[in-house]
């Protein structure tokens, strides 16, 4: 676990010897970058306390996640990046991209426009976008992203996904061997470490957990859902009250890693399907029913007794989801707690109070 914790620091990327390309969103397949000999790094603002330069460009009325990352790049925390790739996730990311393109020293800026629906007719667009991204990476970095390399990269990420599934089961079992906070550390690391390195560390963690004592004293098994969450401290605050996050559907968590990819003769198409059709996030316009189904399946599979929904302030997409969940839960009530937060800080006191009350309410 300590190795994984260390991996959230940038040293791993710095020492890799490969051009490091940061990316914003889970619709960007890291396999594409790996196949080009590039180091894919999911951008985050962990450890960045001052978002002033991001605030100045993006204003205080936008998502603090986007502001922190923007500030991190502008202030040199990411000075080892060769480039970044953004997508049209949301207005905040799009504007962060505008600022990075115009104001940062990054050499490469890529962009992906991802459809907002699973409708079959839109898939060719996404595939075309991925192909264009591939070509632009090849052109700028003077590399070739060939099918063979893609297949190798897919194999590596499949391995990583397998480890995550195994660890997730250890988190999910009753009693669990892994806390929700520890699981988030695992999944964040998976987005920062090279796949091979992650797999090696994960294997040793799985081995160590086989003989470890399970976690006891759990008052309530909960599901955590909502927008991007990369800070395990948030979950630590929740779990400090006796809750256990038995499953999650958060970005940087177990959602957004793409689906397992079967070997095929057309790895680009396989990649596109795996990443477009993964469990949808709130930006996907017509996919709330699918998202809800995934949430309820997880709720049942984890034998959970409540759901915590978290989102970063000013995020309209996820706040819309909270409304829709409330509406669904009017007919079939499920204990549901909404926590709004600011990125970069953890209001421990407030979280503890609210989670404690929630646990009491659900009989924990």
């Amino acid at each position, binding site marked *: 676990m300590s190795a994984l914790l260390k991996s959230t620091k940038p040293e791993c990327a710095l020492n890799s010897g490969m051009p490091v390309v940061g990316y914003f969103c889970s619709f960007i397949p890291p396999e594409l970058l790996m196949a080009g000999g590039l180091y894919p790094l999911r951008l985050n603002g962990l450890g960045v306390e001052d978002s002033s330069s991001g605030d100045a460009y993006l204003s205080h009325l936008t998502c603090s996640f986007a502001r922190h990352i923007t500030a991190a790049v502008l202030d040199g925390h990411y000075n080892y990046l060769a480039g970044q790739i953004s997508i049209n996730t949301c207005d905040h990311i799009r504007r962060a991209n505008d600022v990075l393109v115009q104001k940062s020293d990054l050499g490469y800026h890529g962009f992906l426009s991802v459809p907002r629906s699973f409708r079959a007719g839109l898939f060719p667009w996404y595939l075309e976008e991925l192909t264009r991204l591939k070509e632009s990476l090849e052109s700028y970095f003077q590399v070739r992203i060939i099918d063979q390399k893609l297949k190798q990269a897919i194999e590596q990420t499949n391995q990583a996904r397998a480890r995550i599934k195994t660890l997730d089961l250890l988190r999910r079992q009753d009693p669990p061997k892994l806390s929700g906070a520890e699981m988030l550390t695992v999944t964040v690391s998976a987005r920062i470490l090279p796949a091979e390195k992650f797999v090696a560390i994960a294997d040793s963690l799985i081995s160590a957990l086989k003989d470890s004592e399970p976690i006891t004293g759990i008052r309530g098994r909960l599901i955590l859902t909502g927008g991007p969450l990369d800070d395990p401290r948030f979950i630590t605050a929740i779990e400090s009250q006796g809750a256990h996050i038995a499953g999650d559907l958060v970005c940087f968590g177990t959602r957004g890693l793409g689906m397992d990819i079967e070997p095929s003769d057309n790895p680009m198409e396989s990649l596109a399907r795996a990443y477009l059709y993964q469990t949808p996030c709130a930006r996907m*316009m017509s996919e709330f029913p699918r998202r809800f189904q995934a949430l309820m399946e997880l709720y049942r599979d984890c034998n959970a007794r409540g759901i915590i929904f978290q989102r970063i302030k000013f995020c*309209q997409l996820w706040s819309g989801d909270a409304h829709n969940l409330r509406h669904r839960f009017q007919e079939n009530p499920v204990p549901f707690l909404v926590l709004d937060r600011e990125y970069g800080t953890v209001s421990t006191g407030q979280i503890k109070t609210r989670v404690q009350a929630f646990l009491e309410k659900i009989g924990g």
Partner: protein
Amino acid sequence: MPILGKKRKQEWETVWKTLSDLKMLFAGDQEELALNALMQNIQNFIREQFQKADAGKPAIWYNIGYGPPLIYALGDVNNVPLAEMSALCSIIGDQADTEALIDASEAAGYSAECCSADKAGIGAVVKGLYPDPCCIVGINTPCDSQVAAFQAMAELRNKVPVFPIDVPPYDDDRTLKYIAGQLAEMIPFLEKNTGRKMDWDRLKEVCQTVNRTSEYLWQWMEWRSLSPTLQPSKLCAFTMVLVIALLGSPLGENIARGLAEDARKKAQEGAKYFDEKVRAIWYQDPVWWDIQLYDWMEAELGLVIPMDIFGFYASEAWIDIASKDSILFGLARLLVNCGPMSRQFRGTMKRYIGDFMYLHQRFQADCGIMAGHIACKHAWGGIGLFKEACKKAGIPLLIFEFDMFDSRILTRKELQFELKRFTNEIVIPQKARLARKS
């Protein structure tokens, strides 16, 4: 006041009565072609909606960012923009009703951070103010709030089929063809759910109506570009209303013609009712909760808004009706390159800033006013780049936070203070300095 002889929900009756009173009031001033055209045709639109609803005609809901031409081509189908009540209650009804609708949506769990146009619209859905839809069309432009609003509509009517249109943030023909393809894909969806067949001849007529409307709007913009601008500032923003609810219908064409003829007549007659001192591009949402504020700006400050972002109608709106493909391509381009706000915000800040600079020059403006509707994250997210661009160009820029449909965020007094200070202490002195230099 009953509508079509029947008692309706209080919000509608208030809108109808107020609109009738407004119509009566301004009909006494035959010079006011634009106002009279607006009142008459909005009233006709509402009347038609109720006629269709009473007759059980299918209704299609859609969010801001989408427009009605394809719906008009289906025939007797009711087009219901989600934000309809937001606009009607504020502009020609009781502002207290708008705020009550906003509160109703928030009480139902809808986010306070989303756009008040959508909040009031969701409040209208919660209160049952719209006829039930047979299907819902959604589009992600101009902003995230639309994505949230569409999903909320879909959830609140979750047995109803939905069709989302995906609009990429690019500005090229590839993107327009992609959107045109989705419109083509949507036609069978609309036919299936409305029970109506798409009549391509009728669609051609609708497109021809759009084209004539576009020509009137371009003429209108020309007349407003003259200095002094003699048509009132408060009429600037109604293009948005027209584009969302009426584009493609004769009612929309009538409004556009009224705006153009009114602007021409006023320009040619040259009657001035106040001294124009400052010209500003109002580059964000209008003050819908107090349209009279524009009269105050003109009378008290000499501050004129020759154009704003809602009023600006781009030159790309022409639809070639030669073939089905060209029609759909034209409709796609109209939707995303001409729809106010969709045009400026769906891509990078380059388009937003570029359009501002263009308007500033074309309308001979002295400054810009960024009335920062707090839910406009796509605008606030670009504020740093926008400020820099204006500074480089030497254009004074006023920025403040407010809400276009909720008067509780920034009060009238606070807004007046900002405008007065900016006009008198920044812009007028700068104009004087520049005049001395030249």
